[in-house]
């Protein structure tokens, strides 16, 4: 029944290969884009089929292997896929959102020189992401893990002639690699640790079944999980490895939507969910995750305050939201984390696509007016809702969702997270507090972006002003679908406290087979009364409203306020505007020293010391030779003297010795 799992990544792969190899010849954008989208759609269909199959089935874990990958002694790695509730959700999100974004891209990328290349990469990305999600062992996951990194690299660097794009692509990959370093270390340690207990495996299910062999809360498991968490940090842009994500906005907007909002960046969360058994066993790690998540959430949000590039605001928002997810994972709210992952995929993809639509329009206008301004700068926008109503509305809905306004999807997921941070056995009020503030800040800067873009007076250059069109159908359809999902998507996870209609928390129930065991074994649960939960919900809605109100006050009512504010705290603004100088700090701490060390090792050590020794030996030998040759003075006497000395020494040694 589930033996068609492999088809899910296979379709995009085929699309990628066909487009990659033949795209240049095909040239026809409709064919190329259509093929890419269709492949995603097929894959979505298969995913759906599997999802519903799983739903209907009693058994919740299915594995499928299509062959052995590596078989060396006790290391046996299969090309294996795993279907369980968690991966089922993920494949739906990936293929569903993926399909929409493919569709969107047809319109958005219209006329690009590397159109075929883009679709090839995008399909390849989907393929890799599906590998990541579906892999039944850590290594297949890792193939996807690195594969999405590769595609992210390719797509960020899509406009490769732009230096900033190249830099960003490289940065993304390298920072991801730092995470991968952690992932590998964790994986290898785990493999060895389990192996030394007699179980040589990298299969997730087997890991889960045998995790009890390791000492719960022990050093080993803590190290392993911390290593994995480092991997997650890299991929999901958590502190301190988040810096690549904002830069990644150099890629085309659909890429930002798909990869850097909806799917790839959530891989870390997914991975923690996948290995929840291990993480549950390591409280220290969990706490670390929660705090890192919280810190990231508030930190990124603070930067989001001061950004003027619409995509960058969204990028920092993504970082911040990912922080929420990690917070959730850290306090043991695995379901909530995954839930937020999913809702986030909806509204953030929608936001990004909306911003893409705006940029597309602005670009069009500037192009029309032969201007060279930055189409992404919000300071040049304003009042766009007149020109792009659909975009505006979808954007608006998504903003509500992200701000956690009641009954939008974000509301359910975020509140569940906050509730868990507050009430979980692994939770902490500090984390809750930070989370709450971050939620407020989120509402503020999201609405700031909304107001700056769509409301107020239009600040666009006069020549371009009136040439901003609403985008075409391929763009607006995905927007609308996603906005719809952002609106209603949360309803599958209605918290118990407000479950008036007793539909139950569908999402929670669905994922229960994956997480409940770990949670029960390690006593991770949120305990508290429904009234407290409801109180907290109201509080968080109020917090969100406060954020919105703040944004309204500063950017609608009182447009001079931000200017005044910055004038009052120039230092603070500068720091925030420059993203806390983290990039510079990293340059100072890591990049430059590495370069310096590299240069030193090369020019100093390699050339001077090692080669110096080598050449020195040669030089000394030659020098000795050049010196010794003067013993060969050409004078007969010296030769005779040498002989006599030889005789005297040799004979003397025996005669006197």
């Amino acid at each position, binding site marked *: 029944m589930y033996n068609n799992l492999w088809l899910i990544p296979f379709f995009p792969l085929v699309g990628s290969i066909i487009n990659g190899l033949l795209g240049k010849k095909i040239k026809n954008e409709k064919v190329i884009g259509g093929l890419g989208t269709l492949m995603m759609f097929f894959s979505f269909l298969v995913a759906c089929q599997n999802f519903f199959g799983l739903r209907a089935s009693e058994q919740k874990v299915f594995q499928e292997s299509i062959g052995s990958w590596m078989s060396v002694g006790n290391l046996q790695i299969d090309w294996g896929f795993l279907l369980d509730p968690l991966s089922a959700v993920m494949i739906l999100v990936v293929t569903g959102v993926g399909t929409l974004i493919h569709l969107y891209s047809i319109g958005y990328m219209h006329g690009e020189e590397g159109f075929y290349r883009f679709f090839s990469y995008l399909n390849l990305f989907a393929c890799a992401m599906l590998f990541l999600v579906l892999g039944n062992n850590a290594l297949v996951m890792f193939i996807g893990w690195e594969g999405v990194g590769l595609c992210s690299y390719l797509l960020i660097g899509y406009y490769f002639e732009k230096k900033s794009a190249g830099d960003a692509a490289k940065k993304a990959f390298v920072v991801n690699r730092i995470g991968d370093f952690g992932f590998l270390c964790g994986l290898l340690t785990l493999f060895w640790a389990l192996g030394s207990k007699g179980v040589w495996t990298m299969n997730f299910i087997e890991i889960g079944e045998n995790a009890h062999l390791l000492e719960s809360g022990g050093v080993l498991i803590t190290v392993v999980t911390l290593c994995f968490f480092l991997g997650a940090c890299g991929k999901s842009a958590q502190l301190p490895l988040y810096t690549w994500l904002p830069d990644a906005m150099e890629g085309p907007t659909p890429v930002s939507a798909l990869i850097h909002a909806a799917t790839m960046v959530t891989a870390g969360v997914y991975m923690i969910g996948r290995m929840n058994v291990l993480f549950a066993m390591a409280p220290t790690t969990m706490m670390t995750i929660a705090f890192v998540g919280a810190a990231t959430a508030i930190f990124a949000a603070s930067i989001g305050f001061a950004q003027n590039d619409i995509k960058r605001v969204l990028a920092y928002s993504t970082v911040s939201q990912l922080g929420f997810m990690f917070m959730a994972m850290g306090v043991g709210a695995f379901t909530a984390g995954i839930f937020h992952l999913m809702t986030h995929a909806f509204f953030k993809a929608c936001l990004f696509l909306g911003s893409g639509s705006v940029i597309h329009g602005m670009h069009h206008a500037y192009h029309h007016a032969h201007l060279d301004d930055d189409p992404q700068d919000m300071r040049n926008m304003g009042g766009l809702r007149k020109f792009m109503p659909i975009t505006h509305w979808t954007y608006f809905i998504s903003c509500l969702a992200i701000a956690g306004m009641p009954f939008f999807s974000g509301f359910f997921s975020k509140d569940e997270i906050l509730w868990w941070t507050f009430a979980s056995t692994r939770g902490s009020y500090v984390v809750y507090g930070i989370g709450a503030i971050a939620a407020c800040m989120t509402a503020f800067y999201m609405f700031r972006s909304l107001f700056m873009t769509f409301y107020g007076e239009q600040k666009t250059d006069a020549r371009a002003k009136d040439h901003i069109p609403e985008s075409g159908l391929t763009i607006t359809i995905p927007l609308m679908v996603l906005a719809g999902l952002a609106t209603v998507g949360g309803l599958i996870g209605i918290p118990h406290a407000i479950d008036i209609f007793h539909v139950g928390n569908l999402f929670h129930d669905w994922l229960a087979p994956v997480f409940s065991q770990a949670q029960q074994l390690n006593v991770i649960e949120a305990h508290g009364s429904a009234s407290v939960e409801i109180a907290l919900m109201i509080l968080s809605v109020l917090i969100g409203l406060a954020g919105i109100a703040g944004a309204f006050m500063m950017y609608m009512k009182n447009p001079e306020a931000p200017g005044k504010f910055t004038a009052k705290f120039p230092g603070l603004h500068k720091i925030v505007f420059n993203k806390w100088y983290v990039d510079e700090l990293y340059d100072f701490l890591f990049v430059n020293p590495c370069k310096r060390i590299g240069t030193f090792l090369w020019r100093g050590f390699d050339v001077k010391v090692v080669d110096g020794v080598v050449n020195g030996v040669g030089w000394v030998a030659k020098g000795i030779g050049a010196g010794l040759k003067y013993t060969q003075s050409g*004078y007969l*006497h*010296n030769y005779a*003297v040498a002989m*006599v000395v030889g005789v*005297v020494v040799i004979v*003397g040694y025996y*005669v*006197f010795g």
Partner: protein
Amino acid sequence: MEAILFYLTALVAILAAFFVTKCRNPVNSALCLVTNFLCLAVLYVMLEAPFMAAIQIMVYAGAIMVLIVFVIMLLNLGTATKSVYTHGLLGGGVLSVLMLFLTNRFVANGQATGTGGEITSEVIQSYGHTELIGKAMFTDFLLPFEIASILLLVAIIGAVVLSKRKV
């Protein structure tokens, strides 16, 4: 008597040898060398080797020295214009003294143990030294003798080849 003769001859031999190394004029050196050869001839006689003494005088003092003196004259080598010694005088001297210690040491401390041959004074006297030499040379040492002839031939060719003026 024998001792006095020995010491006297030895002294002269040593002095002559020393003056060979000392004389400014090569001709003088040559004459000293001849003196040295003659002293050795005396010693050969004392050692009951009259035939060797004879050829010492004939071959060495006669033939070789004449050749040397002839060449000195031919090349018209007068007294050396500068120093007769090279810059290595001191080193050479020291080395020679060391050599002297060395040689004295092994000559004095060593034993010439290979005694017991059949040629005693009586045999020499009864048989004759020349005869003995002749016998040895044409029985046991026939091959070296023949080789010596080749050696002389080679030397002659060499001398001719090297001193011809034109090809």
